Protein backbone atom coordinates (compact mmCIF):
# COMPACT_ATOMS: atom_id res chain seq x y z
CA UNK A 1 0.00 0.00 0.00
CA UNK A 2 1.08 3.54 -0.70
CA UNK A 3 3.34 5.37 1.74
CA UNK A 4 2.09 8.76 2.85
CA UNK A 5 3.96 11.44 4.75
CA UNK A 6 1.72 13.71 6.78
CA UNK A 7 3.28 16.98 7.91
CA UNK A 8 1.01 18.76 10.39
CA UNK A 9 1.99 20.67 13.51
CA UNK A 10 -1.42 20.32 15.15
CA UNK A 11 -0.92 16.96 16.84
CA UNK A 12 -4.61 16.17 17.33
CA UNK A 13 -5.44 16.78 13.71
CA UNK A 14 -2.33 14.93 12.56
CA UNK A 15 -3.16 11.81 14.56
CA UNK A 16 -6.83 11.79 13.66
CA UNK A 17 -6.01 12.20 9.99
CA UNK A 18 -3.49 9.39 10.33
CA UNK A 19 -6.21 7.09 11.73
CA UNK A 20 -8.54 7.94 8.82
CA UNK A 21 -5.82 7.13 6.28
CA UNK A 22 -4.50 4.06 8.10
CA UNK A 23 -8.01 2.57 8.20
CA UNK A 24 -7.94 2.63 4.41
CA UNK A 25 -4.68 0.73 4.51
CA UNK A 26 -2.26 3.56 3.80
CA UNK A 27 1.10 3.50 5.51
CA UNK A 28 1.25 6.88 7.24
CA UNK A 29 4.25 8.61 8.76
CA UNK A 30 3.50 11.73 10.79
CA UNK A 31 5.82 14.73 11.14
CA UNK A 32 5.12 17.71 13.38
CA UNK A 33 8.00 19.78 12.03
CA UNK A 34 9.41 20.47 8.60
CA UNK A 35 12.98 19.81 9.73
CA UNK A 36 12.12 16.19 10.52
CA UNK A 37 10.79 15.81 7.01
CA UNK A 38 13.95 17.13 5.42
CA UNK A 39 16.03 14.76 7.56
CA UNK A 40 13.88 11.74 6.68
CA UNK A 41 14.00 12.68 3.00
CA UNK A 42 17.70 11.79 3.01
CA UNK A 43 16.82 8.19 3.94
CA UNK A 44 13.65 7.36 2.03
CA UNK A 45 10.82 8.80 0.01
CA UNK A 46 7.02 8.47 0.18
CA UNK A 47 4.45 8.12 -2.60
CA UNK A 48 2.55 11.20 -1.49
CA UNK A 49 2.99 14.12 0.90
CA UNK A 50 0.21 15.81 2.84
CA UNK A 51 1.64 19.16 3.86
CA UNK A 52 0.24 21.76 6.20
CA UNK A 53 0.81 25.33 4.93
CA UNK A 54 1.34 27.18 8.20
CA UNK A 55 4.09 25.33 9.99
CA UNK A 56 6.34 26.83 12.66
CA UNK A 57 9.75 27.72 11.31
CA UNK A 58 9.84 26.69 7.69
CA UNK A 59 6.40 26.94 6.06
CA UNK A 60 4.84 24.10 4.10
CA UNK A 61 5.52 25.62 0.68
CA UNK A 62 9.10 26.42 1.70
CA UNK A 63 9.62 22.85 2.81
CA UNK A 64 8.25 21.56 -0.47
CA UNK A 65 10.58 23.86 -2.39
CA UNK A 66 13.50 22.43 -0.42
CA UNK A 67 12.34 18.86 -1.05
CA UNK A 68 11.90 19.47 -4.77
CA UNK A 69 15.59 20.26 -5.09
CA UNK A 70 16.19 16.56 -4.60
CA UNK A 71 15.54 14.78 -7.94
CA UNK A 72 13.97 11.88 -6.03
CA UNK A 73 11.27 14.23 -4.81
CA UNK A 74 10.65 16.10 -8.00
CA UNK A 75 7.58 14.11 -9.02
CA UNK A 76 6.06 13.20 -5.69
CA UNK A 77 2.52 14.59 -5.46
CA UNK A 78 1.90 17.09 -2.70
CA UNK A 79 -1.44 17.98 -1.14
CA UNK A 80 -1.41 21.20 0.83
CA UNK A 81 -3.65 21.27 3.87
CA UNK A 82 -4.66 24.81 4.62
CA UNK A 83 -6.88 26.56 7.12
CA UNK A 84 -6.35 29.86 5.37
CA UNK A 85 -9.19 31.42 3.54
CA UNK A 86 -7.23 33.64 1.23
CA UNK A 87 -6.81 32.52 -2.31
CA UNK A 88 -3.30 33.97 -2.38
CA UNK A 89 -2.32 31.30 0.09
CA UNK A 90 -3.95 28.47 -1.77
CA UNK A 91 -2.13 29.65 -4.88
CA UNK A 92 1.17 29.18 -3.06
CA UNK A 93 1.62 25.71 -4.44
CA UNK A 94 1.38 27.07 -7.95
CA UNK A 95 4.67 28.88 -7.70
CA UNK A 96 6.46 25.77 -6.50
CA UNK A 97 5.22 23.19 -8.88
CA UNK A 98 2.63 23.52 -11.57
CA UNK A 99 1.79 19.85 -11.86
CA UNK A 100 1.82 17.72 -8.76
CA UNK A 101 0.00 19.64 -6.10
CA UNK A 102 -3.50 20.05 -4.74
CA UNK A 103 -5.00 22.05 -1.92
CA UNK A 104 -7.39 20.74 0.69
CA UNK A 105 -9.11 23.26 2.93
CA UNK A 106 -9.57 22.65 6.64
CA UNK A 107 -11.82 21.31 7.96
CA UNK A 108 -11.84 18.51 5.41
CA UNK A 109 -14.07 15.47 5.73
CA UNK A 110 -12.76 11.93 5.45
CA UNK A 111 -14.49 11.27 2.15
CA UNK A 112 -12.95 14.30 0.49
CA UNK A 113 -9.54 13.54 1.99
CA UNK A 114 -9.55 10.00 0.64
CA UNK A 115 -10.79 11.19 -2.74
CA UNK A 116 -7.98 13.71 -3.14
CA UNK A 117 -5.38 11.22 -1.91
CA UNK A 118 -6.57 8.54 -4.32
CA UNK A 119 -6.68 10.79 -7.38
CA UNK A 120 -3.24 12.21 -6.59
CA UNK A 121 -1.79 8.73 -6.35
CA UNK A 122 -3.40 7.65 -9.63
CA UNK A 123 -2.20 10.72 -11.47
CA UNK A 124 1.29 9.95 -10.33
Amino acid sequence: MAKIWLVEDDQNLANLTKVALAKKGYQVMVFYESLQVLAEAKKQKPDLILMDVMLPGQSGPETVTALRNDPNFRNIPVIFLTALLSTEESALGMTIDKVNYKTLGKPYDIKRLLEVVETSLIKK
Partner: protein
Amino acid sequence: MNKKDKKLLFVASFDDASILRKFTILFLVASILPMVLLYYIYAQNSRHGHIGINPANFTIAMVLMVLGVFVGFISMHSLLKKVVNISKENSKALGNILSPDTVKELNQGENEIVILSRSFSAVTQQLEEKNKKLRSMYELQKDFTSMVSHELRTPLASIKMAVELVAEEAVGEINIEQKEILGRAQQEADRLKRLIDDILYLSKIEADKLQMNFMIDDLHRVMTPIVESQKYVAQSRGLYLKTEFDPGVPQLSFDRDRIIQVLNNLLSNAIKFTKEGGITVKTLNKISENCVVVSVVDTGRGISQEDLPKLFGKFQQIDSAQENVDGGTGLGLAISREIITRHSGKIWVESKLGVGTAFNFTLPIKEIKSAKISSFSPYSSTQKRGQDA
Protein backbone atom coordinates in the same frame (compact mmCIF):
# COMPACT_ATOMS: atom_id res chain seq x y z
CA MET B 1 33.51 78.63 13.27
CA ASN B 2 35.48 76.38 10.98
CA LYS B 3 34.81 75.81 7.30
CA LYS B 4 32.94 72.59 7.78
CA ASP B 5 30.59 74.08 10.33
CA LYS B 6 29.87 76.96 8.02
CA LYS B 7 28.96 74.53 5.30
CA LEU B 8 26.71 72.68 7.70
CA LEU B 9 25.01 75.91 8.54
CA PHE B 10 24.67 76.65 4.85
CA VAL B 11 22.78 73.48 4.10
CA ALA B 12 20.90 73.10 7.33
CA SER B 13 19.60 76.61 7.64
CA PHE B 14 19.61 77.83 4.05
CA ASP B 15 19.85 81.45 4.90
CA ASP B 16 18.81 82.70 1.50
CA ALA B 17 19.98 86.29 2.04
CA SER B 18 23.49 85.13 2.79
CA ILE B 19 23.73 82.73 -0.11
CA LEU B 20 22.37 85.28 -2.57
CA ARG B 21 24.74 87.93 -1.29
CA LYS B 22 27.57 85.49 -1.63
CA PHE B 23 26.54 84.76 -5.20
CA THR B 24 26.14 88.41 -6.17
CA ILE B 25 29.60 89.36 -4.97
CA LEU B 26 31.16 86.35 -6.66
CA PHE B 27 29.35 87.09 -9.92
CA LEU B 28 30.33 90.73 -9.97
CA VAL B 29 33.96 90.00 -9.23
CA ALA B 30 34.05 87.21 -11.80
CA SER B 31 32.43 89.11 -14.69
CA ILE B 32 32.86 92.84 -14.18
CA LEU B 33 36.51 92.69 -13.18
CA PRO B 34 37.64 91.25 -16.59
CA MET B 35 35.56 93.91 -18.32
CA VAL B 36 37.23 96.69 -16.37
CA LEU B 37 40.60 95.14 -17.08
CA LEU B 38 39.77 94.84 -20.76
CA TYR B 39 38.76 98.48 -20.88
CA TYR B 40 41.93 99.43 -19.12
CA ILE B 41 44.05 97.56 -21.66
CA TYR B 42 42.12 99.15 -24.54
CA ALA B 43 42.56 102.61 -23.11
CA GLN B 44 46.29 101.99 -22.62
CA ASN B 45 46.69 100.70 -26.17
CA SER B 46 44.76 103.54 -27.82
CA ARG B 47 46.91 106.10 -25.96
CA HIS B 48 49.98 104.52 -27.49
CA GLY B 49 48.45 104.63 -30.93
CA HIS B 50 48.15 100.85 -31.40
CA ILE B 51 44.55 100.94 -32.28
CA GLY B 52 43.47 97.55 -33.55
CA ILE B 53 39.78 98.17 -33.17
CA ASN B 54 37.21 100.78 -34.09
CA PRO B 55 36.11 102.71 -30.92
CA ALA B 56 32.44 102.53 -32.00
CA ASN B 57 32.68 98.77 -32.40
CA PHE B 58 34.41 98.49 -29.08
CA THR B 59 31.57 100.44 -27.42
CA ILE B 60 28.95 98.19 -28.99
CA ALA B 61 30.87 95.13 -27.85
CA MET B 62 31.11 96.52 -24.36
CA VAL B 63 27.37 97.31 -24.24
CA LEU B 64 26.52 93.82 -25.46
CA MET B 65 28.87 92.33 -22.92
CA VAL B 66 27.31 94.31 -20.09
CA LEU B 67 23.87 93.28 -21.33
CA GLY B 68 24.92 89.62 -21.47
CA VAL B 69 26.36 89.78 -18.01
CA PHE B 70 23.17 91.43 -16.77
CA VAL B 71 20.89 88.81 -18.35
CA GLY B 72 23.17 86.07 -17.04
CA PHE B 73 23.04 87.59 -13.62
CA ILE B 74 19.24 87.81 -13.57
CA SER B 75 18.69 84.26 -14.76
CA MET B 76 21.35 82.78 -12.48
CA HIS B 77 19.93 84.76 -9.60
CA SER B 78 16.38 83.48 -10.10
CA LEU B 79 17.65 79.94 -10.62
CA LEU B 80 19.61 80.13 -7.43
CA LYS B 81 16.62 81.49 -5.64
CA LYS B 82 14.64 78.44 -6.73
CA VAL B 83 17.39 76.14 -5.55
CA VAL B 84 17.41 77.94 -2.23
CA ASN B 85 13.66 77.44 -1.93
CA ILE B 86 13.90 73.76 -2.75
CA SER B 87 16.68 73.41 -0.23
CA LYS B 88 14.62 75.20 2.35
CA GLU B 89 11.75 72.79 1.79
CA ASN B 90 14.19 69.95 1.91
CA SER B 91 15.73 71.08 5.15
CA LYS B 92 12.26 71.42 6.61
CA ALA B 93 11.56 67.86 5.55
CA LEU B 94 14.95 66.87 6.87
CA GLY B 95 14.05 68.32 10.22
CA ASN B 96 10.83 66.36 10.26
CA ILE B 97 12.15 63.11 8.99
CA LEU B 98 15.80 62.81 9.87
CA SER B 99 17.31 62.88 13.30
CA PRO B 100 19.66 65.83 14.07
CA ASP B 101 22.55 63.37 14.16
CA THR B 102 21.79 62.20 10.66
CA VAL B 103 21.62 65.80 9.44
CA LYS B 104 25.01 66.45 10.97
CA GLU B 105 26.42 63.35 9.36
CA LEU B 106 25.00 64.28 5.99
CA ASN B 107 26.63 67.65 6.13
CA GLN B 108 30.11 66.15 6.25
CA GLY B 109 30.25 66.83 2.55
CA GLU B 110 32.62 68.25 0.00
CA ASN B 111 30.29 70.88 -1.39
CA GLU B 112 26.75 72.15 -1.22
CA ILE B 113 25.44 70.25 -4.22
CA VAL B 114 26.78 66.96 -2.91
CA ILE B 115 25.27 67.66 0.48
CA LEU B 116 21.99 68.67 -1.08
CA SER B 117 21.68 65.60 -3.28
CA ARG B 118 22.75 63.40 -0.44
CA SER B 119 20.11 64.85 1.84
CA PHE B 120 17.51 64.33 -0.86
CA SER B 121 18.37 60.69 -1.18
CA ALA B 122 18.41 60.35 2.61
CA VAL B 123 14.89 61.74 2.76
CA THR B 124 13.76 59.37 0.01
CA GLN B 125 15.32 56.44 1.79
CA GLN B 126 13.70 57.40 5.06
CA LEU B 127 10.32 57.73 3.34
CA GLU B 128 10.75 54.37 1.72
CA GLU B 129 11.42 52.79 5.08
CA LYS B 130 8.38 54.46 6.60
CA ASN B 131 6.31 53.30 3.68
CA LYS B 132 7.55 49.75 4.14
CA LYS B 133 6.62 49.87 7.81
CA LEU B 134 3.14 51.12 6.99
CA ARG B 135 2.73 48.45 4.39
CA SER B 136 3.70 45.69 6.79
CA MET B 137 1.23 47.08 9.31
CA TYR B 138 -1.44 46.86 6.65
CA GLU B 139 -0.37 43.32 5.87
CA LEU B 140 -0.61 42.46 9.54
CA GLN B 141 -4.13 43.79 9.69
CA LYS B 142 -5.02 41.93 6.55
CA ASP B 143 -3.44 38.83 8.01
CA PHE B 144 -5.58 39.10 11.10
CA THR B 145 -8.49 37.67 9.17
CA SER B 146 -6.30 34.83 7.96
CA MET B 147 -5.02 34.21 11.47
CA VAL B 148 -8.50 34.07 12.98
CA SER B 149 -9.49 31.79 10.16
CA HIS B 150 -6.54 29.51 10.87
CA GLU B 151 -6.99 29.46 14.61
CA LEU B 152 -10.68 28.56 14.38
CA ARG B 153 -10.51 26.08 11.56
CA THR B 154 -7.73 23.90 12.89
CA PRO B 155 -9.47 22.76 16.10
CA LEU B 156 -12.73 22.51 14.20
CA ALA B 157 -11.02 20.20 11.74
CA SER B 158 -10.00 17.92 14.61
CA ILE B 159 -13.50 17.91 16.12
CA LYS B 160 -15.07 17.08 12.78
CA MET B 161 -12.53 14.38 12.06
CA ALA B 162 -12.95 12.77 15.49
CA VAL B 163 -16.74 12.70 15.30
CA GLU B 164 -16.64 11.43 11.76
CA LEU B 165 -14.24 8.61 12.56
CA VAL B 166 -16.60 7.31 15.22
CA ALA B 167 -19.81 8.02 13.31
CA GLU B 168 -18.57 6.29 10.16
CA GLU B 169 -17.58 3.30 12.27
CA ALA B 170 -13.97 3.55 11.22
CA VAL B 171 -12.98 2.61 14.76
CA GLY B 172 -15.68 0.08 15.62
CA GLU B 173 -19.40 -0.44 15.42
CA ILE B 174 -21.87 1.88 17.15
CA ASN B 175 -25.63 1.60 17.67
CA ILE B 176 -28.32 3.73 16.06
CA GLU B 177 -28.78 5.99 19.04
CA GLN B 178 -25.08 6.72 19.21
CA LYS B 179 -25.06 7.42 15.51
CA GLU B 180 -27.94 9.85 15.85
CA ILE B 181 -26.24 11.73 18.65
CA LEU B 182 -23.03 12.02 16.67
CA GLY B 183 -25.08 13.15 13.68
CA ARG B 184 -26.22 16.16 15.68
CA ALA B 185 -22.66 16.95 16.62
CA GLN B 186 -21.71 16.78 12.96
CA GLN B 187 -24.56 19.09 11.95
CA GLU B 188 -23.43 21.68 14.45
CA ALA B 189 -19.79 21.34 13.45
CA ASP B 190 -20.85 21.94 9.86
CA ARG B 191 -22.86 24.95 10.92
CA LEU B 192 -19.84 26.28 12.78
CA LYS B 193 -17.78 25.86 9.64
CA ARG B 194 -20.32 27.80 7.57
CA LEU B 195 -20.44 30.48 10.24
CA ILE B 196 -16.68 30.89 10.20
CA ASP B 197 -16.73 31.06 6.41
CA ASP B 198 -19.54 33.61 6.34
CA ILE B 199 -18.18 35.80 9.12
CA LEU B 200 -14.77 35.95 7.54
CA TYR B 201 -16.23 36.56 4.12
CA LEU B 202 -18.40 39.36 5.44
CA SER B 203 -15.58 40.98 7.39
CA LYS B 204 -13.43 40.84 4.31
CA ILE B 205 -15.98 42.38 2.02
CA GLU B 206 -16.88 45.03 4.60
CA ALA B 207 -13.26 45.99 4.97
CA ASP B 208 -13.15 46.28 1.19
CA LYS B 209 -10.46 43.62 1.03
CA LEU B 210 -12.33 41.41 -1.34
CA GLN B 211 -11.08 41.79 -4.87
CA MET B 212 -14.02 42.16 -7.22
CA ASN B 213 -13.63 40.69 -10.65
CA PHE B 214 -15.90 42.63 -12.99
CA MET B 215 -16.37 41.20 -16.45
CA ILE B 216 -18.79 41.88 -19.22
CA ASP B 217 -21.00 38.86 -19.48
CA ASP B 218 -24.42 37.57 -20.45
CA LEU B 219 -26.44 37.51 -17.23
CA HIS B 220 -28.88 34.82 -18.37
CA ARG B 221 -26.08 32.56 -19.49
CA VAL B 222 -24.56 32.81 -16.00
CA MET B 223 -27.88 32.37 -14.18
CA THR B 224 -29.23 29.39 -16.10
CA PRO B 225 -26.99 26.61 -14.71
CA ILE B 226 -27.54 27.89 -11.16
CA VAL B 227 -31.30 27.81 -11.58
CA GLU B 228 -31.07 24.36 -13.17
CA SER B 229 -29.11 22.88 -10.29
CA GLN B 230 -31.48 24.38 -7.70
CA LYS B 231 -34.41 23.00 -9.68
CA TYR B 232 -33.58 19.51 -8.45
CA VAL B 233 -33.67 20.66 -4.84
CA ALA B 234 -37.00 22.41 -5.40
CA GLN B 235 -38.53 19.45 -7.21
CA SER B 236 -37.43 17.04 -4.48
CA ARG B 237 -39.58 19.14 -2.14
CA GLY B 238 -42.53 19.20 -4.52
CA LEU B 239 -41.95 22.80 -5.62
CA TYR B 240 -41.69 24.25 -9.11
CA LEU B 241 -38.85 26.50 -10.16
CA LYS B 242 -39.30 28.47 -13.37
CA THR B 243 -37.72 31.43 -15.12
CA GLU B 244 -39.16 34.50 -16.81
CA PHE B 245 -36.20 36.09 -18.51
CA ASP B 246 -36.54 39.41 -20.35
CA PRO B 247 -34.87 38.95 -23.75
CA GLY B 248 -34.11 42.68 -23.76
CA VAL B 249 -31.52 42.37 -21.01
CA PRO B 250 -28.21 43.62 -22.42
CA GLN B 251 -24.72 42.44 -21.57
CA LEU B 252 -23.69 43.65 -18.15
CA SER B 253 -20.51 44.20 -16.21
CA PHE B 254 -20.55 42.11 -13.04
CA ASP B 255 -18.55 39.72 -10.90
CA ARG B 256 -19.78 36.35 -12.03
CA ASP B 257 -18.93 34.30 -8.93
CA ARG B 258 -20.38 36.88 -6.55
CA ILE B 259 -23.63 37.22 -8.44
CA ILE B 260 -23.91 33.44 -8.48
CA GLN B 261 -23.42 33.54 -4.72
CA VAL B 262 -26.27 36.05 -4.32
CA LEU B 263 -28.57 34.08 -6.60
CA ASN B 264 -27.79 30.83 -4.79
CA ASN B 265 -28.56 32.41 -1.46
CA LEU B 266 -31.87 33.91 -2.60
CA LEU B 267 -32.89 30.64 -4.23
CA SER B 268 -32.00 28.50 -1.23
CA ASN B 269 -33.90 30.89 1.04
CA ALA B 270 -36.94 30.77 -1.23
CA ILE B 271 -36.88 26.98 -1.31
CA LYS B 272 -36.28 26.80 2.43
CA PHE B 273 -39.25 28.98 3.34
CA THR B 274 -41.77 27.68 0.79
CA LYS B 275 -43.93 24.65 1.52
CA GLU B 276 -46.34 24.83 -1.43
CA GLY B 277 -46.26 26.26 -4.93
CA GLY B 278 -42.84 27.32 -6.05
CA ILE B 279 -40.34 29.90 -7.13
CA THR B 280 -40.07 32.14 -10.19
CA VAL B 281 -36.82 33.81 -11.20
CA LYS B 282 -37.40 36.94 -13.28
CA THR B 283 -35.24 39.48 -15.05
CA LEU B 284 -36.32 42.83 -16.41
CA ASN B 285 -34.52 45.51 -18.39
CA LYS B 286 -35.74 48.60 -16.59
CA ILE B 287 -34.89 51.19 -19.20
CA SER B 288 -36.31 54.10 -17.18
CA GLU B 289 -33.77 53.47 -14.42
CA ASN B 290 -30.99 52.23 -16.65
CA CYS B 291 -30.65 48.94 -14.81
CA VAL B 292 -31.60 45.29 -14.88
CA VAL B 293 -33.81 43.96 -12.08
CA VAL B 294 -33.44 40.35 -10.98
CA SER B 295 -36.26 38.96 -8.81
CA VAL B 296 -36.65 35.69 -6.93
CA VAL B 297 -40.36 35.34 -6.18
CA ASP B 298 -41.76 32.59 -3.97
CA THR B 299 -45.18 31.51 -2.79
CA GLY B 300 -43.89 30.76 0.69
CA ARG B 301 -44.84 31.74 4.19
CA GLY B 302 -43.93 35.40 3.71
CA ILE B 303 -42.47 37.89 6.14
CA SER B 304 -44.40 40.25 8.39
CA GLN B 305 -44.16 43.98 7.79
CA GLU B 306 -42.27 44.62 11.03
CA ASP B 307 -39.66 41.95 10.29
CA LEU B 308 -38.90 43.22 6.79
CA PRO B 309 -36.40 45.93 7.76
CA LYS B 310 -34.34 43.52 9.88
CA LEU B 311 -33.64 40.94 7.22
CA PHE B 312 -30.47 42.39 5.75
CA GLY B 313 -28.85 42.80 9.13
CA LYS B 314 -26.35 40.34 10.51
CA PHE B 315 -27.60 37.25 12.32
CA GLN B 316 -31.21 38.16 11.67
CA GLN B 317 -33.37 35.09 11.50
CA ILE B 318 -37.08 35.42 11.97
CA ASP B 319 -37.69 31.79 12.73
CA SER B 320 -37.24 30.23 16.09
CA ALA B 321 -34.14 28.12 16.31
CA GLN B 322 -36.16 24.89 16.04
CA GLU B 323 -37.79 25.96 12.82
CA ASN B 324 -34.48 26.73 11.18
CA VAL B 325 -33.59 23.09 10.82
CA ASP B 326 -31.09 23.33 8.00
CA GLY B 327 -28.88 25.54 10.11
CA GLY B 328 -28.60 28.80 8.23
CA THR B 329 -26.16 31.34 9.53
CA GLY B 330 -28.36 34.42 9.26
CA LEU B 331 -25.62 36.10 7.24
CA GLY B 332 -26.67 35.24 3.71
CA LEU B 333 -28.70 38.37 3.08
CA ALA B 334 -26.12 40.61 4.75
CA ILE B 335 -23.46 39.20 2.42
CA SER B 336 -25.79 39.54 -0.58
CA ARG B 337 -26.40 43.17 0.22
CA GLU B 338 -22.67 43.88 0.41
CA ILE B 339 -22.09 42.19 -2.92
CA ILE B 340 -24.89 44.10 -4.65
CA THR B 341 -23.69 47.37 -3.14
CA ARG B 342 -20.22 46.68 -4.58
CA HIS B 343 -21.96 46.47 -7.95
CA SER B 344 -23.60 49.89 -7.36
CA GLY B 345 -26.96 48.11 -7.31
CA LYS B 346 -29.82 47.94 -4.82
CA ILE B 347 -31.38 44.97 -3.07
CA TRP B 348 -34.79 44.97 -1.43
CA VAL B 349 -37.63 42.72 -0.36
CA GLU B 350 -41.40 42.79 -0.82
CA SER B 351 -43.52 40.32 1.10
CA LYS B 352 -46.96 39.47 2.36
CA LEU B 353 -47.38 37.11 5.27
CA GLY B 354 -48.84 33.83 4.11
CA VAL B 355 -48.74 34.83 0.42
CA GLY B 356 -45.11 34.96 -0.57
CA THR B 357 -41.93 36.93 -0.86
CA ALA B 358 -40.00 38.65 -3.64
CA PHE B 359 -36.33 39.47 -3.26
CA ASN B 360 -35.09 41.87 -5.93
CA PHE B 361 -31.74 43.31 -6.84
CA THR B 362 -30.54 45.63 -9.58
CA LEU B 363 -27.42 45.70 -11.67
CA PRO B 364 -26.71 49.01 -13.37
CA ILE B 365 -26.38 49.15 -17.13
CA LYS B 366 -23.18 51.03 -17.72
CA GLU B 367 -22.32 52.42 -21.08
CA ILE B 368 -19.98 49.85 -22.46
CA LYS B 369 -17.54 51.35 -24.91
CA SER B 370 -17.37 49.49 -28.18
CA ALA B 371 -13.63 48.93 -27.81
CA LYS B 372 -14.25 47.17 -24.54
CA ILE B 373 -16.84 44.80 -25.93
CA SER B 374 -14.52 43.53 -28.60
CA SER B 375 -11.80 42.75 -26.10
CA PHE B 376 -14.18 41.06 -23.68
CA SER B 377 -16.12 38.35 -25.38
CA PRO B 378 -19.06 36.97 -23.42
CA TYR B 379 -16.92 33.92 -22.73
CA SER B 380 -13.79 35.77 -21.75
CA SER B 381 -14.32 35.22 -18.04
CA THR B 382 -14.44 31.46 -18.34
CA GLN B 383 -11.55 31.48 -20.74
CA LYS B 384 -9.48 33.53 -18.36
CA ARG B 385 -10.30 31.22 -15.49
CA GLY B 386 -9.18 28.32 -17.57
CA GLN B 387 -5.84 29.95 -18.27
CA ASP B 388 -5.30 30.79 -14.62
CA ALA B 389 -5.85 27.27 -13.44
